[in-house]
């Protein structure tokens, strides 16, 4: 059993927040370029109107909404995982908990931005607060996302306080600019680990962990109901709430594996994030993946047997026009990661990461298949000669903004990992209970 002490950890992580390597800058520059590309796309959309996107009267929601669901999914998953791991005092969570929390907050910041791209008049967004109509699922979503965002920021902040206090106390040893030291001082709230402070902090963190689990479930269900409450074939399904929650956790877990992999390589954390971490998370992925597969199957099975006219048309379309996408999203995306995890021989860090990448991609595709084909199958036939009115095809504007969204994700992560160690020192040092080992336990 390894016990860590804050002094050694501090020394070890010090260089990571003090120096920035060349490759860090190169990547940062690369992502900034992608971001600028997105800005160009956005300006094009502002000046040219929404006609520059691929969205038309039938497919009124496109890649933007897909990205929105996707990022929100990742974030809620993060919340769920971090909340659950925290509440259950899972010992092996310690090195990864900060990453999970960052995943949550960062994707929660990026996701809603895609809504702004999607609405025709984003300058009227304040109307949502001036003239709210709470019967609208969009209103539920606005309220829920704001609540979740605030909650997650508080939760993450709580987990940062101890580390910030440590950085503040030892800032004389850090070779970093003054403003950052000030930042540490200011945000550590004068935390000195007095018994009352410790008690308050632990208590607050427990409350927030519980809150966040609940909110994550509510928020993602609400998001699903935006689709579920309509009469559109494929959307009008009671299973959508839980289905979205599961899909979200699935994609979030996948992202977690990728983030673990990246930081492990970049920041040389091999001593902290071990293979067993990957395997444990992968097992989680396996279980959730099984649920996800089951839900998907249940949803399509009932539609297929019932064969309501519109459902049938939709399923025909999925198996004809969207054959490969459907296979990737619902077969490959479930089976491949599961197979990788099922056989201990295949369970290497690289394989697991590949499985996670497949998961992420499949889940994005799954959302695409939920949004687009349904809208291409309205009750009244599309009788139009303009090809873009009949079939949705995202334009470069939409892809540029998607790319920008992903790069902002990385940019924020890179910045966050420079502000404080990506592994929570205080978490590592603390002992939850005397008998809980800090080594990862093998659960499979």
């Amino acid at each position: 059993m390894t016990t860590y002490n804050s002094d050694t950890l501090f020394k070890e992580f010090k260089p990571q927040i003090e120096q920035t390597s060349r490759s860090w800058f190169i990547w940062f520059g690369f992502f900034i370029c992608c971001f600028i590309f997105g800005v160009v796309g956005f300006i094009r959309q502002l000046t040219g109107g929404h006609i520059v996107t691929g969205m038309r009267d039938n497919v009124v929601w496109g890649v933007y909404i897909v990205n929105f669901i996707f990022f929100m999914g990742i974030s809620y998953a993060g919340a769920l995982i971090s909340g659950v791991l925290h509440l259950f005092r899972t010992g092996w969570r310690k090195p990864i908990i900060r990453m999970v929390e960052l995943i949550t907050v960062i994707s929660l910041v990026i996701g809603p931005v895609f809504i702004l791209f999607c609405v025709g008049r984003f300058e009227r967004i304040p109307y949502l607060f001036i003239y709210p109509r709470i019967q609208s699922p969009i209103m539920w979503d606005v309220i829920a996302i704001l609540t979740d965002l605030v909650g997650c920021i508080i939760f993450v902040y709580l987990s940062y306080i101890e580390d910030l206090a440590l950085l503040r106390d030892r800032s004389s040893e850090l070779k970093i600019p003054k403003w950052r030291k000030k930042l540490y001082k200011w945000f550590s709230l004068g935390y000195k680990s007095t018994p009352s402070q410790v008690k308050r902090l632990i208590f607050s963190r427990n409350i927030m962990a519980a809150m966040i689990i609940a909110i994550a479930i509510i928020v993602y269900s609400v998001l699903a109901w935006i689709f579920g409450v309509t009469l559109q074939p494929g959307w009008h399904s009671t299973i959508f709430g839980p289905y979205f929650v599961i899909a979200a956790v699935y994609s979030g877990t996948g992202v977690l594996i990728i983030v673990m992999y990246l930081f492990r390589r970049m920041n040389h954390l091999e001593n902290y994030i071990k293979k067993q971490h990957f395997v444990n998370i992968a097992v989680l992925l396996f279980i959730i993946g099984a649920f996800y597969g089951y839900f998907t199957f249940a949803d399509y099975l009932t539609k297929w047997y019932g064969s309501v006219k519109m459902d049938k048309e939709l399923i025909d379309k999925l198996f004809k026009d969207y054959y490969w996408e459907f296979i990737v999203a619902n077969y490959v995306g479930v089976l491949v990661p599961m197979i990788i995890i099922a056989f201990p021989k295949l369970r290497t860090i690289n394989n697991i990461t590949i499985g996670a990448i497949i998961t992420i991609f499949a889940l994005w595709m799954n959302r695409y298949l939920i949004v687009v084909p349904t809208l291409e199958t309205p009750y009244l036939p599309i009788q139009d000669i303009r090809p873009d009115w009949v079939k949705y095809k995202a334009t470069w504007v939409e892809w540029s903004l998607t790319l920008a969204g992903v790069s902002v994700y990385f940019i924020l992560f890179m910045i966050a990992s420079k502000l404080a160690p990506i592994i929570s020192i205080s978490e590592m040092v603390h002992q939850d209970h005397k008998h809980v080992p800090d080594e990862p336990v093998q659960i499979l």
Partner: protein
Amino acid sequence: MEDTNKDKPNSRRKFLQLGLGLGAVSVATAVAGKALAAGPEGGEKSAPSASGEKVKVLTTDGKVVEVDAAQLSLAKASGKFVSPSESHIGIPGRKFVMVIDLSKCKNARKCIEACQEGHYLPKDHEWMKVFLMQDANTTAPYWFPKPCFHCDNPLCVSVCPVGATYKRSDGIVLVDTDRCIGCKFCMTGCPYSARVFNWNKPEVEYPSDMKYSPERAVPQKEGTVGKCVFCADKLRKGELPRCVAACPMGVLYFGDILEDSVTNGTETVRFSELIRNRAGYRHLENLGNMPSVYYLPPVDRQFPVDSGYDDLKPELKERFKNIPYIKNTKLKKP
């Protein structure tokens, strides 16, 4: 030439209405000693005197002359201006209903043209659409004009997050494009594809003095939603919606369900009788939106389906190329 006559305004109908209208206004302007009085006074005089603008028209001998625009007007004088907030209140004591007689429709598209003209819509925006429906390969095709159904349980209104679309006491569902944020939720909510989005700035000119009212919905604004408004502005003046007035076949009937009366401009019938005798129904009743638009099934047709197809411009014909009937009869290569 025949067409010309069809398009002429039905002056008799107008007159019929007027006798009563004036009776209510009472134009008692009898001047002592003189039995004649010009009336009614205070009528809307919207056109300015001598605007300097010219309208070019043809003389009978085929020459072009310019007439001062102040003397000519294409549009009838608009009624009282109804602001967006006033437009939330329906016409008191009314509940509007439309009946569409599928047996008479031959896709003349006059309703669509009148609608686009009256609401200053771009050519590719059709608030009224005419579909060629063929429910199954083995069933008969028919023309299916479809405005907004102004449902009594409108999902589009339920889901709007800012109350930009609303249902009034007279049953009309309107969109306030000053309020709409363009989230398009209502478009996914509507199972009848009634709503049209303004993906870019509509490239049409409308009279510059026209103030925006959701009742007429001119002008349409970029990034917001538009749809059929049952010509609420016309109804305020006691006139028929533009599509109803324009249909040369009398396919569209419009009226007040509380009065149990619908008219297509030439014929006025009792709504309940029409629905009973002709087995009227509502489209996709099973969805539970309770439309205010009823259909009379296409039995005993007055025109063969082909007549609506053959006269179309090629690009309009293209629209129907996937309909089994058209595929089998029109597009089949020998």
